[in-house]
């Protein structure tokens, strides 16, 4: 095998999480000498996706991890499958692709535009996040579908006319909130709950509907208006962009991991060198003793024993990034396709592959367990390619606190009771995830901030000054061999 130290690298990128993979994509037409390493034997870092067997290995490895590691307390449970029929037991390991950081991507997100303009979208397949559901025990209907637009609201008999008018007023405001600072600026740091009731007279139930769209890990009385409004607006203005009835998408076959891999592949196609299972153990700044400016600024010792030099070093050890948030998650496999959950409510909408169920704070209490924080369950159907036909994967998340494992388990039970489908739980993986660097995000929706980070790093590595003319970010022509007419000739 050739030696890595023979090359004078322009940039060494550490970690193949989503952000750094997108950087590799951004640099893939730059003629820079790029070395991209990852300490793991797989792509995706915190956004990785695994088969069942790979999960087993990952659980073992997280046990030995230190406090600063992104994952902790991973525990695995599998149902006994002695007397079960086929769909009622786990299939073979590779029938599953479980993703550690489940995220939806709003259709308005710049990420989608960049995946298209950089042409890598051709290697990806996107599916709709269709229905959103709200769980509430005070209603006779435990699971209620969130309205998908104005018509839904008009037809909803459970909302009285006064509340409908309030809601319409709010919807009119929110799509233009950036120009309506007079209405909300003074309440920027107040809670969403207070704002919705005092400024729009929304009844508590509708407040929960609005709050659900923020995907906040905090309860509506702890979520600030300043933070919440852009998120609510994003949800509502994303509706219908790529088709009716949905405002977000997910990549098939494993979410962010799939995007990371496609992006790294583009990096490799551009000549970047990929080495997995290799970490940067030590980095040193090379002192400039000569008069001339040194091209190589860093000397990096790799865990494979080699030492490489590079002009730029993009690492994951960013101490400024942690905001201390910890999220508890359960990934569960269940023995039902949950067809009613995915059934389309909008004419002409694509078949939803993902559905979101929101459990607001206090939406149930049982055996001393009550929800102090919202719980979100993203339900992925077998359409996502993440599980066999006849099963679903549930990704449940809530803010970590002492009791959160029990709370997540209770929430999943409540959900399965509510769908009344005689569903068996086949597999659960519990873990806690903390944000240790700015390059990974616990957010349940893709955060466009990541793209700003990537663009900045791209400029720095490419040597583009702030005011200088430079090529547009991630706008690439098709590579040789890809026919432009490919989009519309893949008839089946």
């Amino acid at each position: 095998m050739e030696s890595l130290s023979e090359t004078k690298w322009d940039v060494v990128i550490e970690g193949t999480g989503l952000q750094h993979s997108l950087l590799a994509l951004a640099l893939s037409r730059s003629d820079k000498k790029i070395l991209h390493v990852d300490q793991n034997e797989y792509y995706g870092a915190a956004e990785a996706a695994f088969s069942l067997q790979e999960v087993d290995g990952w659980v073992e490895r997280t046990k030995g991890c230190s406090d600063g590691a992104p994952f902790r307390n991973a525990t695995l449970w599998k149902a006994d499958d002695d007397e079960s029929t086929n769909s009622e037991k786990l299939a073979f390991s590779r029938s599953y692709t479980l993703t550690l950081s489940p995220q939806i991507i709003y259709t308005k997100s710049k990420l989608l535009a960049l995946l298209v303009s950089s042409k890598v979208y051709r290697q990806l397949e996107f599916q709709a996040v269709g229905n959103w559901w709200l769980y509430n025990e005070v209603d006779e209907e435990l699971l209620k579908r969130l309205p998908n637009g104005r018509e839904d609201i008009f037809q909803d008999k459970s909302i009285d006319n006064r509340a409908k008018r309030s809601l319409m007023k709010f919807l009119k405001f929110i799509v233009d909130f950036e120009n309506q600072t007079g209405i909300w600026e003074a309440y920027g740091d107040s809670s969403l709950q207070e704002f919705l009731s005092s400024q729009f007279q929304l009844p508590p139930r509708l407040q929960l509907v609005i709050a659900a769209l923020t995907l906040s890990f905090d309860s509506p009385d702890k979520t600030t208006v300043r933070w919440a409004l852009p998120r609510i607006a994003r949800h509502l203005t994303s509706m219908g962009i790529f088709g009716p009835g949905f405002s977000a998408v997910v990549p098939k076959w494993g979410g962010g991991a799939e995007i990371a891999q496609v992006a790294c592949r583009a990096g490799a196609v551009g000549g970047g060198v990929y080495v997995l299972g290799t970490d940067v153990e030590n980095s040193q700044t090379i002192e400039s003793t000569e008069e001339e400016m040194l091209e190589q600024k860093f000397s990096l010792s790799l865990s494979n024993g080699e030492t490489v030099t590079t002009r730029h070093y993009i690492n994951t050890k960013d101490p400024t990034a942690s905001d201390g948030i910890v999220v508890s998650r359960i990934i569960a496999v269940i023995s039902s396709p949950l067809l009613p959950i995915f059934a389309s409510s909008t004419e002409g909408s694509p078949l939803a592959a993902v559905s979101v169920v929101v459990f607001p704070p206090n939406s149930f209490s049982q055996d001393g367990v009550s929800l102090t924080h919202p719980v979100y369950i993203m339900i992925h159907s077998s359409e996502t390619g993440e599980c066999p036909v006849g099963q679903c994967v549930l990704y449940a998340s809530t803010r970590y606190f002492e009791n959160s494992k029990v709370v997540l388990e209770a929430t999943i039970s409540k959900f399965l009771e509510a769908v009344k489908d005689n569903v068996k739980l086949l597999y659960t993986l519990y873990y806690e995830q903390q944000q240790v660097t700015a390059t990974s995000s616990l957010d349940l929706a893709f955060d466009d901030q990541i793209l700003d980070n990537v663009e900045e790093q791209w400029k720095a590595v490419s040597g583009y000054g702030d005011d200088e003319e430079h090529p547009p970010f991630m706008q690439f022509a098709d590579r040789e061999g890809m026919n432009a007419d490919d989009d519309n000739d893949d008839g089946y």
Partner: protein
Amino acid sequence: MAEATAPKPSSSVKLVLLGEAAVGKSSLVLRFVNNDFQENKEPTIGAAFLTQKCNLPTRTIKFEIWDTAGQERFASLAPMYYRNAQSALVVYDLTKPTSLIKAKHWVAELQRQASPGIVIALVGNKLDLTNESSGSGNALGEDSETDAAEGENDDGDARKVSTAEAKTYAEEEGLLFFETSAKNGTNVTEVFTAIANAIPETSLKGARGPGATQSSANRTEDQSRVNLTGPRDSASKEGCAC
């Protein structure tokens, strides 16, 4: 352009290339897609995703060809690379015995990691460097027994892997087997046509992967796809290649 008959059913098939660096994977693709060959070409950079149609009597197969993008150098190919691949071309250089060992490693890896029904073709490339200019393929005769060459032959035959050895191995593992030359084109189209013919009908119709192939209602795949580039142009252009 006359459209006399109804178009044949057409399906996309993902094909991955595997094998040691420099055995000629990218060259085989270049020969298949562009009918071209470049001596001493730069390794791989640039082309890593190509498409080419293959017309069979009853259907059209559109190969989505995934080259390694040079990632084989540090064994850092992404799992997504083989996932959902319906076919694989595992290439060795028949003048280089170690490359066959590497090829066997890739076959084992595919059998462990790829979709269960994957069609694998083992290809010994650079046949032009041997004395036999005619191609050896699946229809190979017994003549190969004699050229189990050890070392360089006096007559400039650089073959170091006998046809019999590789063929026996391919038969044991249930692989298609061909000896090719990307340089002069011997057997290249034949490899891809044989793969196209061997793809089971059930794994077509866009249904890929273990989940989808079990489903009888596998047309749902299309119903769930979101198109990021606006409404689809239904008037599809027909291009014919092989």
